[in-house]
């Protein structure tokens, strides 16, 4: 049982600051011979004057000289931030010629998605405690009942038979105890051996300390799990010594150890090192903290929403979180507070001492080049084991990229990605593969099939009728002669530095790319979102493929963020280039090579909306002719609505 003393923050911000303060304050004087005193004083005086000079000199260099943009960049480096996350500041704040875009309600209401989960109104962020129970998939989420920005957080709740058709339920948990008075934050569910559910979640106490609390269904016979009870002995965990009172959140689903105890991990940080603490428990009420960590990586900052789970090295089914053994690898995933990026790494878990080692330390969790579930807008993701169909399912929070004024005007902010299955890539053996759950196919209505050959520098309209709710599956092939010419041409240098962001987007033409689709485009292509492949010569004269989503021309509006996203995608010998795109109003999700590389983008067109939205196929390559074989489905709405007694008879759509 936690004592009140333990709730006092053990490290204050002051401590963190004083570590970086220069130690120039002179020592207290002691009794010494006069000459030594004099010498000491003169020396210290000189040092003090020197320090005073340094401080003011640095101040003045900061002020003069540098242009706004450069000083923002260099400050970014000082603050340890990548230039990309500073994008919005340098692009907008210094550009006083940014025009206010006349958003009207017609444009704004178009942005709402048709088949992605989002509440009826207001703000949502992290997915919480996803689980399957008594025939229903449950989804909880961080929700602000009062505004379209983060704050006043409670647990929203929804259920579905198929992960697609969601029904809104009443709020599951509110901040009604001292130990979560300032927020009922992110948590995860665990199924005990007897099939009952325990939920661990972070509470922000009345004194702003982050603690872990236990909750469970008030009535286990209620398949809708409407009411939740909080353990009378909460909190069950408080920040341990050496961990900041505000650096302790997002407990994971527990897994069974070989000794029969349950084990959980919680992300945190020590100075700039991201860490994952590890605890054992038998009853979820009292815990033993390990002296060692599950893992840590220097210079990665605070680890939020840590997730830890096994994947099979050989099978395509998901594994229960407690599974371990020789045919299994373990994934650690963390959300990087610093960069708003979710990273994962695959490695080996040692149950005897609760540690994990990455297969490839150079792309360890949180390192900028580490693997990501998604190279676009995707954060605070969480998986769960779906015992109904033997799958591991991934949820991801997709925030807005527009201004908060627009969010306030339209009355909502954020959606969830379409749930994805997650499996180990048995062919590359180095990454995970994700794919939208099969149930999404139940939304497919009519479709059109196309086979087109497009020469270099071509844009072709694809006539599918309405183009705001689409599911596109495509296969591309570059004509062999063009490939051979390119491949054998020694004058073409290997482009090691090529990336989607630095490549200049979809308009930068290369020998073998870019080519793909332009979605959410208007007839004149004044607004468009290209999702495409770009093939270049990589190291050792191999072809290298990147998969990108370019939102830089997605809208005429200037008060939204318009990045170019993407990454390298492994393409193995004999594989064609394949792409799947889900278009749903203001969200576009792209999947390359069966989900080896995924990109989620948020876009806010002003013209390419409603009936004016079009789809194009393009080939911007200089030399290559490309064959595209693809099918485009119209997607129905998921008609997400509040649960009513009529819904009890809803048959499963699969």
């Amino acid at each position, binding site marked *: 049982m936690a004592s009140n003393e333990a709730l006092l923050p053990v490290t204050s911000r002051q401590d963190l600051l004083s570590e970086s303060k220069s130690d120039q304050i002179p020592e207290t004087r002691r009794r010494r011979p006069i000459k030594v005193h004099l010498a000491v004083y003169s020396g210290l005086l000189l040092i003090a004057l020197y320090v005073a000079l340094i401080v003011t000199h640095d101040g003045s260099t900061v002020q003069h000289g540098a242009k706004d943009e450069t000083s923002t960049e260099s400050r970014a480096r000082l603050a340890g*931030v990548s230039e990309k996350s500073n994008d919005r500041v340098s692009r907008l*704040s210094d550009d006083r010629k940014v025009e206010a875009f006349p958003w009207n309600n017609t444009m704004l209401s178009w942005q709402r998605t048709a088949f992605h989960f989002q509440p009826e109104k207001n703000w949502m962020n992290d997915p919480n405690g996803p689980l399957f129970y008594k025939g229903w998939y449950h989804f909880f989420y961080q929700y602000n009942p009062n505004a379209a*920005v983060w704050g006043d957080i409670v647990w929203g709740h929804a259920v579905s038979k198929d992960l697609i058709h969601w029904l809104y339920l009443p709020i599951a948990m509110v901040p009604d105890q001292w130990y979560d008075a300032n927020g009922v934050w992110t948590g995860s569910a665990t199924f005990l051996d007897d099939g009952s559910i325990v939920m661990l979640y972070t509470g922000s106490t009345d004194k702003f300390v982050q603690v872990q609390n236990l909750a469970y269904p008030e009535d286990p016979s209620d398949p809708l799990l409407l009411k939740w009870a909080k353990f009378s002995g909460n909190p069950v965990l408080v920040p341990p010594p050496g961990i900041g009172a505000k650096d302790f959140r997002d407990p994971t689903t527990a897994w069974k150890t070989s000794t029969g105890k349950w084990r959980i991990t919680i992300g945190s940080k020590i100075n700039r090192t991201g860490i994952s603490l590890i605890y054992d428990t038998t009853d979820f009420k009292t815990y033993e903290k390990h002296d060692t960590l599950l893992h840590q990586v220097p210079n990665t900052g605070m680890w939020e929403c840590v997730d830890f789970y096994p994947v099979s090295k050989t099978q395509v089914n998901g594994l229960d979180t407690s599974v371990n053994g020789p045919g299994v690898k373990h994934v650690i995933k963390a959300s990087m507070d610093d960069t708003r990026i979710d990273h994962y790494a695959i490695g080996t878990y040692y149950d005897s001492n609760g540690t994990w080692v990455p297969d490839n330390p150079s792309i360890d969790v949180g390192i900028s080049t580490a693997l990501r579930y998604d190279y676009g807008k995707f954060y605070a993701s969480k998986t769960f084991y779906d015992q109904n169909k033997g799958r591991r399912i991934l949820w991801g929070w997709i925030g807005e990229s527009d201004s908060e004024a627009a969010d306030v005007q339209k009355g909502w902010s954020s959606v969830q990605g379409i749930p994805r299955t997650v499996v180990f890539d048995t062919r590359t053996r180095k990454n995970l593969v994700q794919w939208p759950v099969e149930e999404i196919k139940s939304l497919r209505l009519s479709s059109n099939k196309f086979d087109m050959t497009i020469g270099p520098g071509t844009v072709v309209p694809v006539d599918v009728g309405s183009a705001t709710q689409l599911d596109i599956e495509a296969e591309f092939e570059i004509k062999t002669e063009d490939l051979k010419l390119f491949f054998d041409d020694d004058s073409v240098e290997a482009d090691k530095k090529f990336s989607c962001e630095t490549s200049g987007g979809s308009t930068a033409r290369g020998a073998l790319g870019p080519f793909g689709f332009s979605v959410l485009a208007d007839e004149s292509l004044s607004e468009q979102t290209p999702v495409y492949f770009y093939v270049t010569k990589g190291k050792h004269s191999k072809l290298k493929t990147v998969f990108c989503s370019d939102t830089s021309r997605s809208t005429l509006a200037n008060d939204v963020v318009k990045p170019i996203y993407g990454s390298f995608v492994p393409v193995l010998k004999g594989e064609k280039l394949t792409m799947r795109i889900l278009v749903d109003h203001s969200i576009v999700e792209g999947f390359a090579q069966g989900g080896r590389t995924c990109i989620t983008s948020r876009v806010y067109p002003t013209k390419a909306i409603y009936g004016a939205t079009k789809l194009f196929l393009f080939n911007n390559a200089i030399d290559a002719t490309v064959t595209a074989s693809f099918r485009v489905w119209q997607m129905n709405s998921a008609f997400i609505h509040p649960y009513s007694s009529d819904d009890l008879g809803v048959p499963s759509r699969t």
Partner: protein
Amino acid sequence: MMMMMMMKVMMMVTVMVSEGSIIEQTCKETPDFNLCVSLLNSDPRGSSADTSGLALILIDKIKGLTTKTLNEINGLYKKRPELKRALDECSRRYKTILNADVPEAIEAISKGVPKFGEDGVIDAGVEASVCEGGFKGKSPLTSLTKSMQKISNVTRAIVRMLL
């Protein structure tokens, strides 16, 4: 005698160096040292605040500047009626700062989830820029816009130290 003099100078200098030190150390890491220092020194809480506290002081300044700008906007409706459309947009944008960005940032920083505070602070700069842009180069609010952008940049740098 000389020793006493030296001691006094010593103490004065060390006091000078150490008293403003946390504010100065923090402000060094922001895009506008002088603005940062003057804003923080102007608040009595500044000298004893930790990084969160300094961030909250600056968010208070953002709030104050927003109110001031909204008053200015209201006054301009009569003086410059031809600017009504741009003023309407600005009014909406600055109200967002007051009613959405500022409360979000205060709650987030107080509760130790600074990334939402960063969002609010960045957005304050964005809303100010968008309002300014609506006058197509002939803005009567330029000075206030610049102030908001600068304060937003400085505050953001401090909030990032909490991540």
